[in-house]
């Protein structure tokens, strides 16, 4: 006799098996009284459970909904407060500083034959690349960047000249 289809018995009594699988289990049950008894026992137990599901305690749905609204509002307020904390702003400023350092370092390594530029011009010029990184820029909150942005046209002329 084939292996006993123990784990198929519950889907079998619930009518969930695919036709081929159902036929295989039916054939087995025809030949195996133990499995037949098992299947019958499971059927009765499932019916007993379905008919006796305990009823949950009642709820005042008005106060449930009000509580839910309050909890959701509090959760949203906590998430907004997190972003305005000093730490994320400090992290963004540090990241911008690191980019700046690499930008200046890259400026010192420019190839020969190019007119030397002042340190300040190199610094400002390199910051132009930074402005292309909008996702970084929108998070910057450094006042000195405004000077650069305000004088962008002058910086551009200097570089062309």
């Amino acid at each position, binding site marked *: 006799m084939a292996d006993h289809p*123990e*784990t*198929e*018995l*519950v*889907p079998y009594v*619930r009518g*969930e098996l695919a036709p081929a699988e159902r036929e295989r289990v039916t054939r087995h049950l025809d030949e195996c009284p133990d499995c037949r008894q098992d299947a019958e*026992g*499971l059927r009765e*137990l*499932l019916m*007993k*459970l*379905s*008919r*006796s*599901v*305990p*009823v*949950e*305690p*009642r*709820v005042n*749905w008005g106060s*449930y*909904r009000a*509580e*839910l609204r309050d*909890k*959701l509002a509090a*959760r949203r307020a906590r998430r907004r407060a997190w972003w305005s904390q000093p730490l994320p702003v400090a992290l963004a400023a540090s990241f911008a500083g690191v980019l700046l350092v690499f930008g200046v370092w890259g400026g010192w390594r420019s190839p020969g034959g190019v007119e030397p530029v002042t340190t300040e011009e190199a610094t400002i010029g390199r910051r132009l690349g930074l402005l292309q990184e909008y996702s970084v820029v929108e998070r910057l909150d450094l006042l000195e960047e405004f000077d650069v942005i305000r004088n962008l046209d002058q910086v551009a002329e200097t570089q062309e000249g």
Partner: protein
Amino acid sequence: MEPTDEVLCQRVAARDEAAFDLLVGRYQERAYRLAWSILRNAEDARDLSQEAFIRLYQSAGSFGGRAKFSTWFYRILVNVCLDDRRKSRGWRLWVRDEPDPDTGESLLDRQPAPAADPVDALGRERTVSKLWAAVDRLTPQQRAAVILQVQEELPTAEIAAVLKCSEATVRVHLHRALQTLRKTMETS
């Protein structure tokens, strides 16, 4: 024509508060009932079903629409409940005869109406009480599988999607759970 749950979920992702209210209204009773069935504590069921709605709100954008909304939401809810039980390690509960806060009715009083013969009825009530006490002693995964099948009447495939496991695993959970329950009823 009323919008489907899936459409409402997409609107919740776009922060449509009215859509969220509608979804809560549709699912609040089912969510609370399922949470209580797993947890057997009214206060926890209230808190955790509300937590599931908050997570629905926060992650509505990740509902891809591949599964039914109910399956996706039940998965959130069951995970919230099972995680809570794992943390508290209090899933091995005897069924608590928790009185209804409004009427003071006990768990036994809230069972379906007994048959005419009072002796038979008392015997049946005791059997039912023992049966559900045994359900409460199942492992969290087995208990969730049994409740989703007999209370929510979900097919095995959907239970697998809610529990995020294979259908074969659900069949094993159910087989072991029901064998345990049968042995309990036979020995008592």
